[in-house]
């Protein structure tokens, strides 16, 4: 009897040791990705040109806001510029323009800091509900280790700020109903609703989070849910109508009507497969946790958020969309998988009696101690497996080159970068590499060419014009959005091209409407190409 007890104690002690070693290994792996992320962010923050397509136009939006102007303009009137994004991210960045002028670093820094806040909030949510510090840290780091988050986190783009506001909203509302003090409860509700509105006015995609949050509030207390929905509709609607009136209807045309793009189901399927391939180790526990809450416990806001965000990711198949559309679902996945892990390690699973418990749980109750022991090994292995699945790192440099040789990986993306995603799905961001001095030299060469003409320059990326001190003309992808929705005339811009009023045209992805590209082809000739950041920029001059 004593021997059996001693044996059990030894086994338990050995299991705890194995768990600690494996958890430490998981922590080291995920911390490594955090270091890679910081290196990448530091590199991008110093890069003075567009890194990802369209960043420069977010900077133009910011400049316009800093001057007290709306970016929602008539694209048929010179300089043919408009934006399709809500204003909040650019409004937050606008004060930097007053002090530092037009530059990319502060937008990228804001994006990067936003992801750190999100990671912290994920960790806090897991710790608050799961009471396991190490799992909470792993959950936050897992978010930053995701290939998708890594790609877009330190960009001058609003997407990750939206995810930050979404995460803060669900964090505020998750336990707001249980707050006894009326004043504090009211403050939590108001903060949650303010964060939802902030997310929606950072990027339209946040509507899914609003639906999930309101559904949660309705389930927990229908009266509060209805009141919250009314407040949200009233405040959000008033802002919407106000901007629309102030911009003579351009707000509706540019941010809503022009955003209805073609849907490619194959792109959605490819991105969902890729999402599972990269995040499957944490997606499975997250899904199991959702099922658990649906049938054996109370539904949390995190589960509803995950379901809504995953369903919303179907839109990743739209033209112009991509893997970034999964970022919200990844944040929710990190929370839920963390809660799954914490419950397993602390033995906090409870199954409410119902018809499913009788068939699915009760026959296996005798295996509970065995499953609990297995959990000590499986949980850290899930994080280690996740760490292996999301492998991404530069393969050049004093540290990364020897490390990549040890790991036996070779660059499979631009500029010496390895990405386990392998770039197999359409819509997957073809970025992540570090920029080099050669890229900066290439960018400066294009700026010199832009400076060399007295005429205006039509550039597909804004940086060259901004750094040359010239006016930015058009936002090509927005023209294409409008053209695809039959809301673009283009005759004034085409006339300028036909009259060769631009001294130079700079193309990269050629995301202009076909009619514009035809006019360029007729009036301008391909002069030279300048390499920058893995792309060839085509320089055209009047024929």
């Amino acid at each position, binding site marked *: 009897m004593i021997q059996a007890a001693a044996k059990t104690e030894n086994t338990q002690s050995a299991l705890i040791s194995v768990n600690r070693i494996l958890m430490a290994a998981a922590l080291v792996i995920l911390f490594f990705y955090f270091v890679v992320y910081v290196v990448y962010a530091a590199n991008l923050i110093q890069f003075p040109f567009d890194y990802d397509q369209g960043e420069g136009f977010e900077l133009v939006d910011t400049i316009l806001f800093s001057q007290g102007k709306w970016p929602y303009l008539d694209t048929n009137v010179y300089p043919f510029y408009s934006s399709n994004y809500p204003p909040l991210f650019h409004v937050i960045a606008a004060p930097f323009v007053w002090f530092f002028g037009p530059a990319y670093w502060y937008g990228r820094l804001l994006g990067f800091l936003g992801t750190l806040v999100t990671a912290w909030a994920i960790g806090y949510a897991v710790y608050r509900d799961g009471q396991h510090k190490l799992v909470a840290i792993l959950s936050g780091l897992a978010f930053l280790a995701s290939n998708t988050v890594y790609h877009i986190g330190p960009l001058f783009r609003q997407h990750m700020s939206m995810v930050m506001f979404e995460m803060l909203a669900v964090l505020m509302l998750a336990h707001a109903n249980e707050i006894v003090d009326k004043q504090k409860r009211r403050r939590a509700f108001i903060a949650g609703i303010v964060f939802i509105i902030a997310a929606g006015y950072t990027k339209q995609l946040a509507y899914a989070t609003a639906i999930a949050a309101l559904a949660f509030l309705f*389930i927990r*207390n229908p*009266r509060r849910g209805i009141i919250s929905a009314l407040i949200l509709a009233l405040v959000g609607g008033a802002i919407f109508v106000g901007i629309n009136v102030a911009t003579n209807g351009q707000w509706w045309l540019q941010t809503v009507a022009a955003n209805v793009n073609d849907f490619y189901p194959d792109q*959605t399927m490819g991105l969902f497969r890729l999402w599972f391939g990269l995040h499957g180790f944490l997606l499975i526990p997250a899904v199991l946790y959702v099922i658990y809450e*649906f*049938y054996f416990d*109370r*539904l949390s806001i995190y589960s509803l958020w995950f379901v809504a965000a995953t369903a919303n990711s179907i839109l990743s198949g739209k033209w112009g969309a991509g893997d970034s559309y999964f970022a919200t679902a990844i944040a929710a996945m990190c929370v839920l998988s963390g809660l799954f892990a914490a419950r397993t390690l602390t033995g906090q699973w409870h199954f409410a009696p119902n*018809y499913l418990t009788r068939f699915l749980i009760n026959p296996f109750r005798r295996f509970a101690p065995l499953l609990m022991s297995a959990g000590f090994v499986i949980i850290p292995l899930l994080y280690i497996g996740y760490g292996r699945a999301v492998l991404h790192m530069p393969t050049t440099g004093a540290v990364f080159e020897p490390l990549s040789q040890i790991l036996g990986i070779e660059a499979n993306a631009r500029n010496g970068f390895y990405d386990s995603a392998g770039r197999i799905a359409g819509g997957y961001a073809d970025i992540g590499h570090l920029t080099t001095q050669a890229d900066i030299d290439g960018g400066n060469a294009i700026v010199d060419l832009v400076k060399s003409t007295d005429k205006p320059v039509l550039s597909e990326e804004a940086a060259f014009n901004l750094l040359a001190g010239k006016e930015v003309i058009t936002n090509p992808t927005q023209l294409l959005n409008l053209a695809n929705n039959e809301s673009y005339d283009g005759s004034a811009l085409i006339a300028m091209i036909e009259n060769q009023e631009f001294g130079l045209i700079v193309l990269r992805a050629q995301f202009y409407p076909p009619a514009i590209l035809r006019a360029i082809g007729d009036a301008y000739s391909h002069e030279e190409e300048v390499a920058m950041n893995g792309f060839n920029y085509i320089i055209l001059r009047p024929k």
Partner: protein
Amino acid sequence: MLKKSLTKRQLGLLLFIGGVIGFIGIIGIDVLDVGREGGIGPAQRIALGLMVALALIGLTLIPMKDTPA
């Protein structure tokens, strides 16, 4: 009543009704707009699948009776 949490049964009913109405609504797009080309498109098929899933999840929650959702 509005100050109390929904039960699993009530949630199940809501999901089931929502799924059925959503399914009929999506099919209805083609019935009402008969001039549309291509029949039920890929986006519609995905939406129909989601509505079926919603209704089925609702059905499985209905037997859970008065357990708070």
